[in-house]
């Protein structure tokens, strides 16, 4: 009774409680909210999802110049259509007068190719198939240096089809782009370097006994003559920085056996894997963070000359070099043994041509540059007097890299979205947001460019998108560890708010009491 009278006489208590509650809710909660939300830049989640689910394919236009039997053409279209990540647009036209003249007058494949390349202009990313007159004395299928394939009407369909497929994209690369998991059991797939925008190529000359042999090799000239043209060609596709060094007093720790039959020291194949690890630390690969390719030229020690690598079946390797997947290659350069009374150190010149052509062969395998080696019955023409790549090789490489980039970007951005979604209070800075938006835009452009067959644009967009996506993903602030999970959030805020809220909630009882009092008073009145 007295309590109710008290309450009736002191409505201030109830008003005070109400006031506290109001302040808590209207002022306290928003202030807490705004001071504790983290800054999260907006990310284009939906765009990433839509782009991820789009199937990508390259479009390659193939023009057939000349007339083929219609069944041949249909079958060709059908067999090419089965390639998964490339769509072919076939078209056909008749050769012009000059082209016909050139076809008839060409004597050797090289001459023919030279004339035709000047007459037929094939855009980057396309191919043209030229039908040769029957009477020509030439192999059934000849691949030119500039995106032209010359076939006779009697050519084998399977051969033509596989030539076109291999020229357009390395088949392993296309499978990898589709499945996006490392291809098991495929040595060739494991050999390729991971797709990155730039590589450091290091040429190392290892001289274990400089007091005996004074090596004279002009590395700079060799690189300028052989390697620089290729590097320049590949600039847009992948940037290669070439360096060279000489390593003295370091040898490969191998124990070759003297082979009486071949009169040289035989290095068996199974010792090769153990040679790299000992020298890896000395090659200076810790200096830069870009992925690196090493090409090592080894001059054997005096007492192990001449040194040849033997394959598993005991026969010496003609190339005397081996390739290390994703790392580079090693070649053994034998020098003539010293004459008995010559003064040491004796000067020795190296065979630059052999060294650089081995380096280029290894580079072709590592990058990988598409080749038609495995297909029989095809003659492939190479660029004259130059180590440069043919145009279709460049296209094929670019296409493989674009596919690899696209799948990488998709994975990176999807993973980033998942990570960000999982941890709701992770800060997404403007920097990261900017990169992600940029990456998504370029990704979209790249997808469009590949679908329309614009290969050079696609390469450019893809490289930029990949760099930005990776920068965003590997940003140091994206570490999940730095942000506490949701259940810990409660552990922090509950002890803060509960002691304050309980009295307020309990005193709301007084407020309700007052309300009811006033309403019953009104009723009674």
């Amino acid at each position: 009774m007295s309590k109710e009278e008290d309450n009736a006489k002191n409505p201030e208590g109830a008003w005070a409680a109400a006031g506290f509650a109001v302040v808590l809710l209207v002022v306290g909660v928003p202030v807490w909210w705004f001071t504790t939300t983290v800054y999260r830049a907006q990310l284009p989640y939906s765009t990433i999802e839509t782009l991820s689910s789009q199937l990508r394919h390259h479009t390659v236009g193939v023009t057939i110049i000349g007339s083929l039997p219609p069944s041949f053409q249909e079958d060709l279209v059908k067999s090419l259509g089965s390639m998964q990540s490339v769509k072919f647009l076939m078209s056909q036209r008749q050769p012009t007068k000059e082209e016909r003249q050139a076809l008839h007058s060409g004597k050797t494949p090289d001459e023919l190719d030279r004339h035709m390349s000047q007459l037929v202009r094939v855009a980057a990313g396309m191919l043209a198939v030229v039908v040769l007159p029957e009477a020509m004395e030439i192999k059934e299928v000849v691949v030119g240096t500039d995106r032209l394939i010359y076939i006779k009407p009697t050519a084998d369909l399977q051969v033509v089809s596989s030539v076109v497929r291999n020229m357009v994209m390395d088949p392993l690369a296309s499978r990898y782009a589709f499945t996006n998991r490392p291809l098991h059991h495929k040595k060739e797939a494991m050999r390729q370097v991971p797709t990155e925008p730039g590589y450091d190529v290091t040429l190392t000359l290892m001289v274990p006994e400089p007091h005996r042999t004074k090596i004279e090799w002009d590395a700079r000239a060799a690189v300028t003559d052989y390697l620089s043209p290729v590097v320049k060609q590949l600039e847009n596709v992948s940037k290669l920085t070439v360096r060279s060094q000489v390593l003295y007093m370091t040898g490969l720790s191998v124990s070759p056996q003297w082979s009486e039959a071949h009169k040289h020291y035989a290095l068996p194949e199974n010792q090769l894997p153990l040679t790299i690890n000992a020298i890896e630390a000395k090659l200076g690969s810790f200096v830069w963070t870009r992925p690196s390719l090493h090409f090592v030229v080894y001059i054997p020690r005096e007492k192990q000359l001449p040194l040849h690598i033997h394959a598993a079946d005991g026969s010496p390797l003609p190339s005397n070099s081996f390739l290390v997947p994703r790392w580079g290659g090693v070649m053994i350069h034998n020098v003539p043994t010293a004459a008995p009374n010559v003064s040491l150190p004796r000067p020795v010149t190296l065979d630059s041509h052999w060294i650089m052509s081995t380096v280029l062969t290894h580079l072709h395998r590592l990058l990988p540059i598409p080749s038609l080696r495995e297909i029989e019955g095809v003659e492939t023409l190479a660029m004259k007097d130059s180590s440069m790549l043919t145009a279709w090789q460049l296209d094929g490489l670019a296409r493989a890299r674009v596919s690899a980039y696209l799948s990488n970007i998709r994975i990176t951005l999807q993973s980033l979205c998942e990570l960000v979604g999982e941890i709701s209070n992770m800060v997404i800075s403007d920097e990261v947001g900017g990169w992600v938006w940029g990456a998504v835009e370029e990704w979209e452009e790249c997808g469009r460019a590949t679908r329309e067959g614009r290969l050079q644009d696609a390469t450019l967009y893809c490289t930029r998108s990949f760099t930005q996506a990776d920068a965003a993903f590997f940003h140091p602030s994206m570490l999940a560890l730095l942000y506490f999970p949701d259940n810990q959030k409660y552990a922090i805020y509950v002890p803060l708010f509960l002691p304050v809220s309980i009295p307020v909630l309990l005193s709301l009882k007084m407020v309700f009491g007052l309300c009811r009092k006033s309403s019953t008073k009104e009723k009674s009145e």
Partner: protein
Amino acid sequence: MRLQELAMIDGGYWAQTGSLGVGEATWRINMERVATALRSPWHTLGASYTLESGAHLSPPPPACSLRITARVRLASLVTSCPGPLSVVYDQGVSETSEKTHTNNWAVLVDTSRFWFNYRHVANVLSMYRSVKRLGIPDSQIILMVADDMACNPRNPRPATVFNNAHQHINVYGEDVEVDYRGYEVTVENFVRLLTGRLAPSTPRSKRLLTDDGSNILIYMTGHGGDGFLKFQDSEEITNVELADAFEQMWQKKRYNEILFIIDTCQAASMYEHFYSPNILAIASSLVGEDSLSHHVDPAIGVYIIDRFTYYALEFLERVTPDSKKTLAQFVCST
């Protein structure tokens, strides 16, 4: 070794075994989705994991090829060591066709400091020495040691760290290369190392530059508890964080296979939450068990090495770069 449980979780197969042999090692096979092509668990579960040191060339012949193929046909399981699991190898599989990795890395972590934790430093340095001897170069080993025993003022044999009371081998050696030392060994640095989110100024020797063809050995030692591992006496890494770090690595294709060896108390709890494929975890003790040290060296005055690592080293010391020992033999011997 008996198969205790076989359950199908998320399309993968899990097998958990009880303790085996000396030293109470347990191991668990985490099967990849590819293995689910074989529907029934009573079929062959071919999961082969190869840890090769020094194999770079393709096709790489096995150099210290530790390899395991678990064929689970319950009736015919091998029931006790030393019968190796290799008895039930798949017949027609050639060496080279199973290899999917192109390089090896090792991350060796010792998380405890103070003089009385000498044995943890000896553990990790012994593993470092074995791994280096068998072919992984320093540029691909990340060594994290939280305290320096060799130059500790309480060390009666300065500049040395021994792992044996007979002091046969100085595991500190002349050419040890520690990448993260002293107070740099923190949970944050460790997770940053694994996930690759390092500051741009981090030098290359402190980065884990693996790719999708890398097999990584991750060895951790120190003091642990149920679900966590203590770092430097002041912080912990939980098994959930570790599992998340591995998942981030898997998503960005930073490993082919991981061999995760952990020598702490209640170590089995650390791999409980792994949910990424291709990880083989070996722990030195089950949950509720302690991992004990092996022996004390009265001359130095502290426990010198832990039991699990002692037996592991007994095995590894007898492995040469061209041996054909298998991972099954390694597991059975510890």
